[in-house]
């Protein structure tokens, strides 16, 4: 499907493979963050709390938090690549000007970059799943589908990040990104069930793409298949599509003057 949508997207993806063949250590660093949270919050705070109700039963706190950390690892992988790295290439590297002088078009460019940022998310999620398996935090074999499910998270945050980045004027604007990302990480049903929020606030939190992503991954990890997972997928796909379309349009405005 991608081949027909953007035939040369894969060559853009390949460029990043060239770059990171030598810089793989940078990718590895992103793996540690969710691990630290698992140890500090999942086991540290979890040691105080013990268990937490999930789906009508009490589950170990670490097992409850771990799927959310997996989802946010995918989010981080995708968003850091689609914001910082793409901003550099867009503003300073002149990389895109060179690429667009070849048969590659802006659509290929966006798809190629999104594939790459998604790969980063999938790598983090997979590595974290291995940690979860090692710690005995996986409650169902369906958890093995989690690295596939995070593709929806990766595309939505990658595309949204890309779209936002096309509006960034300088590195200073990235401060705003953290103002959004930190609460997104903390409040998206990551460390406690979404039911805790009162009334309207809960529905705002339900709209957070990370809440949807976490719900998707958590459902898989607990083997709790439900119809709301389809809502998660539809919602994340819609964000991906809107973000992608906007990013392509903005690339046209910025680069094809």
């Amino acid at each position, binding site marked *: 499907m991608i081949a027909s949508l953007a*035939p*040369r997207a894969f*060559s*853009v993806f*390949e*460029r990043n493979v*060239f*770059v990171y063949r030598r810089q793989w250590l940078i990718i590895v660093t992103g793996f540690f963050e969710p691990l630290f949270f698992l140890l500090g919050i999942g086991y540290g705070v979890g040691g105080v709390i013990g268990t937490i109700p999930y789906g009508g039963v009490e589950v170990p706190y670490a097992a409850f938090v771990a799927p959310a950390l997996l989802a946010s690892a995918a989010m981080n992988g995708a968003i850091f690549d689609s914001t910082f790295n793409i901003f550099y290439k867009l503003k300073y*590297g*002149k*990389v895109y*000007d*060179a*690429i*667009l*002088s*070849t*048969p*590659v*078009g802006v659509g290929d460019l966006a798809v190629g970059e999104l594939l790459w940022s998604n790969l980063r998310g999938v790598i983090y999620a997979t590595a974290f799943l291995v940690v979860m398996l090692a710690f005995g935090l996986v409650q169902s074999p369906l958890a093995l589908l989690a690295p596939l499910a995070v593709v929806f998270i990766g595309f939505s945050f990658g595309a949204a990040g890309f779209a936002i980045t096309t509006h960034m004027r300088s590195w200073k604007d990235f401060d705003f990104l953290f103002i959004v990302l930190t609460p997104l990480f903390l409040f998206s049903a990551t460390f406690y069930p979404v039911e805790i929020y009162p009334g309207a606030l809960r529905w705002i939190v339900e709209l957070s793409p990370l809440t949807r992503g976490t719900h998707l991954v958590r459902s898989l990890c607990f083997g709790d298949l439900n119809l709301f997972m389809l809502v998660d997928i539809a919602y994340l796909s819609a964000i991906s599509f809107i973000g992608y379309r906007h990013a392509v349009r903005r690339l046209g405005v910025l*680069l*094809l*003057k």
Partner: protein
Amino acid sequence: MGMTNSASEPTALIRAQGLTKVFGARSAVDGIDFEVRDGEFFGFLGPNGAGKTTTMRMIAGVSPRTSGTLEIFGQDPDLHGSEIRGQIGVVHQQETLDMELTVRENLLIFGRFFGMERAAIATRADELLELFQLSDRAKDQVEPLSGGMKRRLSIARSLIASPRILMLDEPTTGLDPQARHLLWDALQRLKRGGTTIVLTTHYMDEAEQLCDRLVVMDQAKIVAEGSPRQLIVEHASREVLELRFPNGTESIDVKVLEGIGDRYERLAERVIIGCENGEAAHARALEHGLDPESWLVRRSSLEDVFLRLTGRTLDE
């Protein structure tokens, strides 16, 4: 100009008619007509801001035109940009090399952008590194290369897919004279190999040395067209007498200037006189009571053509 479209004429690879590009209220390119023929070395000569780069971008299909027609290989770049770019090599004025990759990787990934097979790219990359004397730097990062080397690498990269047309935007700006001549030689070799080359420049000597045919652009319009020789014959006299007046030229009487040669241009500190015989014109200037600090006689160049057509020098 005697440009009839007889059957013996080489086919036009690029054809523009009334080509126009407007940014907001400003016309960057204002209704220009030109044709680039198969196998020729074609130049856009003009000062910065004349519209040369915008024209190049429209040809490469990365800047949609506002109006007029434009055909490359008989196709519209706004509709078939990708196919057209597949047969064009582009060297930007600003360095666009990939600083995150090595010299050789810059060539390899470009081949992939053109959809070439990996094995074919590797062979071609090594060939180009050899040709542009970069083989011993193949594994190095791009950043520490000299300006001349970077420019050679940019050109090598643009040739990875053996394009029919090579487009260079101000290729020697910022290079030292030696690097410049090396580059000119390389471009002439490419031309002999059958590549059609389109270049923009604001250097008269570059246009004169390299171009078979060129258009002179000024303020978004084409003001003259022809071979360098033709342009000089048509728009300039045989010789030029330059008189220097460090204290300014405003006080010099028009009548005096008109009497020295065929035509004159008055600049801030120089008077440039077009004439048949520079020595004789100098003698007349002294007879008229002019007292220049220094003077020189030279053959007319494209610089004089530009001055004649626009009343300005290129670096103004």
